[in-house]
C-alpha cells in the first residue's frame, strides 16, 4: 500500500516535471520569436517596469543591510586576530559572490513570484487565459514570454544594485563605526575581489530570474479553481522559486569553481 502511494506520488512528480519542461520549452520558443518581433516590445517594457523598476528600493535595502550586518559580525572576529583591515575583502567577496545575488533573487521571488502567480492564476480561473487562446493568440507568447524576458534581463541588473549597496553598507559600518583606515580597506578589497567573482555573481542572475518567472508563471497557468487554488499556487510558487534558487546556486558553485580552477590561471597568457 505504502509503496504504491509512494510510486503514485513519484509518477505525479515526474509528470509535473515533464509538463514544466514543455511549458519552459514553449516559453523559450515564444521568447525567441518575441525578440524578433518589435511589436511585442511594449509588453516587455510594461513588465520590466512592474518587475524590475519597482523592485529597486527593496533590493537596495536588502543589499545595504547584508553589507552592514556582515561588517558588524565579522569585525570582532577579525579584530581579535588583528586583521580588521582585511574586513573589506571578506565583506565584498561574500556580497558579490553569494549573498548579493542569492538574497536579491529571494527578495525578487517574494515580491514578483507571488504576484505573477496570483495574477496569472486569477486569469486562469476566470477563463481569461482561455479567452486569449480563443482569440487565436498564444497565451504563452502574450502572457508568459514578456514576464520571463523582463525577469531574466533585469535580475542581473538588480543584483548589481544589491552588490553596490552591500559594498557601501559594509564600507560605512567599517570605516565610520569601527574606524578602519579607509585606504587600507579599499586596498585589501581590490586585491581580494576579482572580476571573476563579480561577473559570476551577476551571471547567475540570468538563471535566477528565468527560474523565478518560469516557475511562477507555470504555477499560475496550472492553478486549481477558486480562491484557495490561487493561494496554494502562490505558496507553491514561492517555495519552488526559493528551493530552485538555492539548488541552482549550489550547482553554479560547483561548476564555476571547476571552471575557475582550470582557466583563470591561464588568463595572463591571453
Amino acid at each position, binding site marked *: 500500500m505504502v509503496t504504491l502511494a509512494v510510486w503514485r506520488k513519484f509518477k505525479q512528480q515526474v509528470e509535473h516535471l515533464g509538463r514544466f519542461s514543455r511549458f519552459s520549452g514553449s516559453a523559450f520558443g515564444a521568447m525567441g520569436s518575441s525578440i524578433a518581433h518589435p511589436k511585442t516590445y511594449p509588453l516587455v517594457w510594461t513588465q520590466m517596469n512592474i518587475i524590475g523598476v519597482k523592485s529597486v528600493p527593496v533590493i537596495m535595502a536588502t543589499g545595504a543591510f547584508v553589507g552592514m550586518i556582515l561588517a558588524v559580525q565579522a569585525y570582532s572576529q577579525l579584530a581579535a586576530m588583528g586583521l580588521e583591515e582585511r574586513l573589506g575583502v571578506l565583506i565584498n567577496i561574500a556580497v558579490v559572490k553569494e549573498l548579493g545575488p542569492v538574497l536579491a533573487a529571494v527578495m525578487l521571488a517574494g515580491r514578483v513570484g507571488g504576484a505573477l502567480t496570483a*495574477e496569472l492564476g486569477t*486569469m486562469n480561473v*476566470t*477563463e*481569461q487565459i*482561455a*479567452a486569449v*487562446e*480563443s*482569440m*487565436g*493568440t*498564444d497565451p504563452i507568447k*502574450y502572457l508568459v514570454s514578456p514576464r520571463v524576458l523582463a525577469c531574466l534581463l533585469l535580475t542581473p541588473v538588480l543584483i548589481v544594485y544589491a552588490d553596490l549597496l552591500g559594498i557601501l553598507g559594509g564600507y560605512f559600518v567599517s570605516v565610520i563605526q569601527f574606524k578602519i583606515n579607509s585606504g587600507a580597506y579599499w586596498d585589501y578589497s581590490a586585491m581580494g575581489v576579482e572580476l571573476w567573482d563579480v561577473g559570476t555573481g551577476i551571471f547567475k542572475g540570468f538563471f535566477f530570474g528565468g527560474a523565478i518567472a518560469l516557475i511562477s508563471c507555470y504555477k499560475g497557468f496550472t492553478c486549481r479553481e477558486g480562491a484557495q487554488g490561487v493561494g496554494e499556487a502562490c505558496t507553491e510558487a514561492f517555495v519552488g522559486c526559493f528551493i530552485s534558487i538555492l539548488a541552482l546556486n549550489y550547482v553554479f558553485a560547483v561548476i564555476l569553481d571547476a571552471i575557475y580552477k582550470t582557466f583563470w590561471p591561464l588568463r595572463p597568457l591571453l
Partner: protein
Amino acid sequence: MTRVEVKPGDGILVTRNLTKIYGERVALEKVSVAIEKGKTTVIIGQSGCGKTVFMKHLIALERPTEGEVFFKGQRIDQLHNHELAEVRTSFGFCFQMGALFDSLTVYENIIFPIQQHREIKDFKVLGELVKLKLALVGMDGYQHQYPASLSGGQKKRVSLARAIALNPEVVLYDEPTTGLDPITSDVINELIIKLQRELKITSVVVTHDMKSAYKIADRIIMLHRGKIAADGDADYIRNHPSEVVRQFIEGRIGEADLAALRLGGTKFPTQFQPEDFSGT
C-alpha cells in the same frame, strides 16, 4: 432513435462521436452534430449537462477524449496551438462569465483581437471601430471603464462586443442572456438575429432561456447528461413527445426528483426558524 451518420463536409462545424471524460465523469458521450452554415443553432439543457464543454470543443479549447471535430471539412481537434490560431480568428467566443481582461479597459479589451490579428495602427479608425461594436450592444460610452466597475450584464455585453470584433464567420455564445433583464435579453436576441441575417454569421447559442431559444433558433439541440436528447426546429421541440424534453421546456421538476425532495426533509435539529423563538 436512429442515429444519423454525419460526414465532415455536412456543415461548417461538425462533431463526430465527440466524447469527453473528466476523470470518472462523462461530460459528453458520442455527440454527433453537423452545424449548418449561416444558421442559428441553439443548445439547451439542464445545468451541468455538458453545454459549455461542447462549445469549447468547437474551437478546440478542450480536446476530445474520443471523436472528431471538423471546421469547414478540416479536422481541428488534433491541430497544434499555432495552427489553431489561424482557425480561431474565424470564431468569436463569448464566455459564460464574460472572461474580460480585468487589467485592461473596455476599449483595450475590444481592440485586443484587432491588434493581435489586423494591422490597424490609426487610433481614429480603432476608436470608431470600438464605438461601433459597443453601440451594437448598447455599451457605447463605457470605453474607459475597467471591467471591475461594470455590472454582470454589462460585462457580458462587452464580452459579446469583443467576440464580434474581428467580424468572425462563427460566433459561439455561452448563455448570452442569462442574468440580463428581459429587455436587454431581447436586445441581445435581436443582435444575434441581425448578425445572422445581415452578415450571414453562423451562431451557436447555449441558453436556458426558452423564450430566447424559440425566438432566435433555426434549430434546437437538447443535451441531457452529455447526450443528445432532441434535435429539431422550434416547433418540433415544442411538441416533443419525450418526457425529459417536455419537463425541461416547461420548466417542471420530474416526478422522481420531486419524490426525492419530499423524502429528504428540510428541517434539521440545528436549523431554527424565527417562530421557534417566539413561543416563550
